[in-house]
């Protein structure tokens, strides 16, 4: 992309473990609250907004096109259209890249994007057999028939289907996301200790970043409670007192017998929303805006669903090829921490010449990831992973980190359930 896309401003809610503070706040409410703030504090007149694009994974049943609901609740004029994008864990990222394409194609000047997810509010579903039984019951007219129909009721009808479990299961290979991480741990021989150490490090980095107030620039304290009487000021997944001992005590969750992936070295289920304003570079110049940064380029790639955790390697390979650059040119890297095993697997894949040649169609390795550059303020394991939000959140966090370290070019890359990877090159200043 030659003409860059500016990220004018961004803000996010705190990220809260599912079932805690935000358990009664719906995904659209979280997003509306921050989008309102974003457009209200911005110097951009609302009339200039061409479109709203929002990412969300499990569209709540009451808001099939959640982007439109968010836009209206945030008080945007009814004339501004809105649509929702879904690319699983990269839905938030997809909203950014979709908007970038629109602006690049000259179809929009300013687009409000973002991602939101309330994993507390994934509904319980009824079995298909129960639905069928209910539908039949409605059609029956006579009382006698209805009574007879009662006998057809089976107790197993009542066992609920957890939509969250369905959502986190690969439908082609019927394995949970955690099992894909187990696959990688075994393929790359990643030990339990390595994973736990990684998780601990994530919590330590996030704790320090929070103490230093690094997240204050991106978080908007967010109200919750029936009458909005409470306010959540900080992320609540970070465990400042995490130690290696308690991590090592946890039982493997996805492969009880031979596994190494535990709840402790995976990301938690989380609620949160993030919103950004994107605009063309020309528009920013015209309005004299000072954007947080720019999107240089992006790439998505597909791979085997049962190895979906390697998505970053595949997507980054494509991004580097498009940009004709090397991994070294990136000053900071955000690689989403879905699972510790999955991040470590990527580190190895990035560094391996053999992997580069065999899988990425390159002459050599992608390049080693410098640990000093990777997820410097922690990642999803400590911060949380509201699936629809994360892609957008990573871009915002990356921009804040680049600013703190006074560096220019950053990479945000993440694995995507279903076997995909996404990678975005973000820069702060002049090209």
């Amino acid at each position, binding site marked *: 992309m030659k003409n860059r896309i500016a990220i004018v401003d961004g803000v996010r809610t705190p990220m809260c473990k599912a079932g805690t503070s935000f358990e009664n706040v719906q995904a659209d409410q979280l997003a509306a*609250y921050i989008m*309102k703030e974003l457009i*209200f504090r*911005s110097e951009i007149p609302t009339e200039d907004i061409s479109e709203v694009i929002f990412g969300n994974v499990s569209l709540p049943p009451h808001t099939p096109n959640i982007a439109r609901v968010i836009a209206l609740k*945030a008080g945007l004029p009814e004339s501004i259209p809105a649509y929702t994008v879904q690319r699983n864990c990269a839905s938030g990222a997809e909203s950014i890249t979709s908007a970038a394409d629109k602006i690049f194609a000259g179809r929009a000047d300013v687009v409000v994007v973002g991602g939101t997810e309330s994993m507390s509010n994934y509904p319980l579903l009824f079995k298909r057999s129960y639905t069928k039984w209910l539908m039949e019951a409605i059609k029956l007219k006579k009382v006698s028939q209805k009574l007879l129909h009662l006998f057809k009721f089976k107790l197993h009808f009542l066992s609920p289907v957890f939509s969250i479990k369905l959502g986190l299961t690969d439908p082609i290979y019927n394995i949970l996301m955690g099992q894909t991480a187990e696959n990688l741990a075994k393929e790359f021989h990643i030990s339990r200790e390595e994973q736990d150490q990684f998780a601990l490090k994530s919590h330590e980095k996030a704790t320090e970043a929070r103490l230093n107030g690094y997240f204050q620039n991106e978080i908007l*304290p967010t109200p919750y409670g029936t009458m909005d009487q*409470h*306010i959540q000021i900080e992320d609540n997944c970070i465990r400042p007192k995490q130690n290696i001992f308690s991590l090592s005590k946890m039982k493997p969750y996805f492969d009880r017998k031979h596994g190494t992936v535990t709840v402790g070295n995976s990301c938690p289920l989380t609620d949160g929303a993030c919103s950004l304003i994107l605009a063309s570079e020309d528009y920013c110049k015209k309005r004299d805006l000072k954007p947080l940064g720019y999107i240089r380029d992006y790439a998505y790639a597909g791979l085997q669903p049962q190895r979906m955790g390697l998505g970053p390697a595949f997507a980054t390979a494509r991004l580097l090829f498009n940009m004709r650059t090397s991994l070294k040119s990136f000053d900071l890297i955000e690689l989403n921490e879905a699972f510790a095993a999955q991040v470590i697997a990527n580190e190895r894949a990035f560094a391996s010449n053999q992997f580069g040649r065999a899988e990425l169609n390159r002459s050599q390795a992608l390049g080693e990831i410098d640990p000093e550059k990777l997820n410097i303020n922690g990642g999803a394991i400590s911060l949380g992973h509201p699936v629809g939000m994360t892609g957008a959140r990573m871009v915002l966090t990356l921009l804040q980190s680049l600013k703190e370290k006074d560096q220019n070019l950053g990479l945000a890359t993440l694995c995507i359930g279903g076997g995909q990877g996404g990678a975005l090159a973000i820069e702060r200043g002049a090209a």
Partner: protein
Amino acid sequence: MTGSLHLNQLNDHAWVIDFDQPDSKANVLNQKVLEEFDALLEKIKNLKGVRSLFIRSKKPNIWIAGADVNEIAELDTPEDAAYKAKLGQKIFNHLNSLPCFTVAVINGACLGGGLELALSCDYRLVTNSPSTKMGLPEVKLGIIPGFGGTQRLPRLIGLKESLAMIIEGRIISPKKALKIGLVDDCVEPSILESVMLEIDKKVDREDYLNNLYKKRSSFSKTLQNSRFGRALLCMFARKRVIARTRGLYRAPLTALDILQHTGYHTLQKDLDMEAQAFGKLAATAGAHHMMDLFFKTEKLKKRKRLAEPSHDTIKNMAVVGGGVMGAGIAGVSVQSQIHVRICDLNWEALAKSRGLVTNVLNKACKTRRITKEMFELFRYQTTYTTNHDGFQKMDLLIEAIVEDLGVKSKVLTDLENKISPDTILATNTSTISIDELAKNLKRPENFLGIHFFNPVIKMPLVEIIAGKDTSPAVIETAINYTRKIGKTPVVVNNCPGFLVNRILLPYLNEAVYLLEEGFEIKDIDEAMLSFGMPMGPLRLLDEVGLDVAYHAGQILEDHYGLRMAMAPSLQKLYLDLGLLGKKGGKGFYNHSSRKPVPNSAIYSYLQPSEGNQMRPGKLPSKIYLQHRLMLVMLNEAGRCLKENIVSDEDMIDIAMIMGTGFPAFRGGLMTYGRDLGNERIKSFTQQFYESIGIRYKLSDYYH
């Protein structure tokens, strides 16, 4: 054509009467229109082949706004008033007895006499447009429906729903009207004409009519309208009315009497009873006062603009200081599609204001001012900040921080640099002089006081205070803003305490003096309750907060001197004992139980006032207490008029009724003063001056 009514033919059998009063936005049933209507009815009666008659309005937002209040206000004797009612009844009976099928086609406000006309038709068809609303608000004018409303309404919808509409004057939406059976159909305005034609086709089918009438009757309605039902429902309603108004307002009680004792005679006999009751009521002073108040507010609405407003409309506003007042202002403004940004020192404070705003919206939702969907929508229309991001966009900024001259001046000067040069800067101060606050400002012409009353959602009054440099254009914008959010603005000139607090605080203060003189808490408050105040002065002090009252009292004492010297006990209770009133749980009352009880512990701390022995339990004389308390107010109000703080007596009447709950049936403070008479004001004040002193210095206004 000079008439207000037009007769048109829809097709061979269907005729339409269009109401279209010339040179008026509304259709009003005055004597002339009624006579014209009667004549038209006679004409239709003699026409051959009329199958259906539709009654429409040509005004876009109003169907028929009711009877002409001016004419009712001129009725001085019960006989005249009853005669007037009977005349209207006769015409509506005429309409009711027409052989053709009569249909009221209601698009817009259908109120009072308008609804009574609609009730006399065979069928009511309404549109679902937002301006369509129906009600019998007569009690709010101190009278009752006199054109058959109290009779035809319960016969149609049952007594239970009628009580709410007649006793409380409740205005209802078309949706609700359809639900309770007040109207027969509710349609989109765009298909009104075709629905009229459909009705016309059906009206000579017997089964259609039978079905229609069958739908209207129900067992529940029969039960409600039976003697037993009436007695029971009216008993409960009467209890509620007495609890709310202590029986001081006659209209709801008269309406209850009528509703209880009619309904089982012939319609004509019941209508006669209604007319008699209407006549008695319309001639009372209370009714006249309330109708005058209506004229005064109408006059206020039609005031002439001083200049073109500086802003077309307020779209974005900021409230600095998110306490109870700030959040209240935000919560009310956001309901009028204004984007509000609340600024406070930290997120703990903002969390509280967010909760308060949502609470205000929830209250509005519960009182059906907004729907659930609107609640959900408005809930996300306020934003919060600890800095000044986005302040450049603001059309209006209202400061609502702590009531302290130093702090306020500093914050205002600071804020002036954060906003654009066009932004109107306002303060919600309740006592501090606007000119004092404007001293350090660079643009005093953009600065003014917009003073809301607590609780903001409930109190309709807003004082707009013009400083000496405030530009008229800014004042006009402030007036438009307050009207937009549904409040009644009264423009006053600057002085400490402005209008309402300057008059009210001496009254509250005097109540504490009375306490020091040995009167008991409950006697003082009871005297004013029976005067018609919604709350006794000591109880009100607790609600306001003793700290707030103390600080405000100090400001007034500093400025106005001994005349407003604060009662020593007030100072003692707040400073030495730390009593805060309701928010602290204790003040003149103990607020721990659901119903506050007088806090007798404070008697021993009271400072006996000069020349008075402390005698708890001094024999109360209601009239004496009322005069004592009213005369401080009357004299201060006189001074406000002399000093040109406010343009005329009517403004004071409106301000005191809407800002302090002064009893409406007394017509307001100045009307009460006029009823009392200058002579008595002078002589009572003189007496009090001799025995009490400077606080009862007579205002020149009454010389």
